């Protein structure tokens, strides 16, 4: 028979540590949006290290890219100059449309849509566990970041800030299993909640069998949970299945490739101004 020799003191420490972890976890179940001070402290102390190592790696990568890319730089410059001229022309058209839009909105009695100021940030790290989906960005409280701020990328929604330190923050991706975003189908305005699947896709829940949803439909935020502003594109429907229950099974692929994301935009407008009013 196998005999394990463990001191009583060790067993006691083991159970005390397990109990401590259970208490820490229980606290979050009661208040899911709160992050324990201990975790915030560890994140604050160690995130500068991640930032420093990331900067060093980026510096080496930049040198290498500069060396390799030098030959292509001149060609690229000419191409970009051409593109700038084209964009200048487009900008004039957009300005014209903006003025028309403003005039027509005034005629129809619609309220001005709030414009959100955003802050760019660089992704410096991934989630430390393979089971959850989050990223670490190089902006923190010193740039006015707070938990629950929405994070986007040029393609669409990325997630929300869940933890901040002075110089870095952690962002929960919309593909994380614990993420939920109030959403709607852009075409039919059918409401639901987009939840992460832990892989690279999401599912849209609580859309009744009577609602009109089809593959290729665009899913956007509805703003009902008070975190994400309305109208941010989330993803496209790739699969719709009517089920025996009240709700349809809908699979959504995010517009942003969250595995390769390098830069993000954090919407930093005050939360009080978030609710959009359509009519006065």
């Amino acid at each position, binding site marked *: 028979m*196998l005999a*394990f*020799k*463990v*001191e009583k*003191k*060790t067993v006691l*420490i*083991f159970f005390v*540590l*397990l109990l*401590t*972890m*259970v208490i*820490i*976890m*229980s606290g*979050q*179940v009661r208040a899911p949006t709160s*992050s*324990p001070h*201990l*975790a*915030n402290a*560890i*994140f604050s102390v*160690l995130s500068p*290290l*991640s930032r420093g*190592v*990331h900067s060093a*790696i980026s510096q080496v*990568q930049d040198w290498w890219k500069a060396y390799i890319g030098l030959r292509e730089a001149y060609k690229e410059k000419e191409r970009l100059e051409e593109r700038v001229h084209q964009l200048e022309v487009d900008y004039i058209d957009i300005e014209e449309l903006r003025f028309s839009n403003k005039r027509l909105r005034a005629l129809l009695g619609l309220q001005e849509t709030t414009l959100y100021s955003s802050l760019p940030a660089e*992704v*410096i*790290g*991934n*989630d*430390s*566990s*393979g*089971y*959850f*989906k*989050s990223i*670490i960005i190089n902006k923190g409280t010193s740039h006015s970041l707070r938990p629950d701020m929405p994070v986007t990328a040029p393609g669409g929604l990325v997630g929300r800030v*869940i*933890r901040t330190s002075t110089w870095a923050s*952690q962002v*929960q*991706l919309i593909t*994380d*299993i*614990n993420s939920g975003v109030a959403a709607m189908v852009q075409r039919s305005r059918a409401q639901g909640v987009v939840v992460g*699947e*832990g*892989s690279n896709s999401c599912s849209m829940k609580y859309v009744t069998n009577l609602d009109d949803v089809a593959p290729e439909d665009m899913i956007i935020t509805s703003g009902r949970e008070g975190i994400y502003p309305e109208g941010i594109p989330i993803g496209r429907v790739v699969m719709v299945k009517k089920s025996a229950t009240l709700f349809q099974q809908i699979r959504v692929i995010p517009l942003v490739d969250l*595995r*390769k994301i390098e830069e993000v935009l954090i919407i930093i407008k005050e939360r009080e101004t978030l609710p959009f009013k359509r009519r006065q």
Partner: protein
Amino acid sequence: MNIYLRIAISILVALIVQTIGVRALSTSIVYLDAFLLVVVYFAAKKGVLTGILVGAVSGLVQDSFSGGIIGIHGFAKTLVGFFVGLLSTILVVENLVAQALILGLATLLNGAVIVGTNYLFLHSPLKGFWGTLSYQFLGNIGVGAIIFQSVKLYSFAKERRWTS
């Protein structure tokens, strides 16, 4: 080098590997749980008490840089540290097969505790769990065995240099 300093450096290296290293290598799936390797190494080498303490600390560090509930990795790694510490009292941990066995069991225990605890507290099943667990099972055994054998060879070489 002082054991506490070695543990602290190991945990910091695991953090860098897990958050930045994986990203720098453009790997989309985490094939490795570097924190688990640190816990298994110190638990097997130094026993149960060191195992549970390293497990609790490294788990909390991992939690602080992860999107899951705080304490989930701390809980799992403390259990892993305890059981690997116990196993090390009956197995010859210098043996490659024993190391692979311990690493495999530790990965399975860690994964099972994470998925179970997440379901217990948040009622959300971890989708894609089996895929991640399979990759980590292979990655942890492969990389872990190479690291442990390299450390063993380094220690032998160092001892030989001192004695000669």
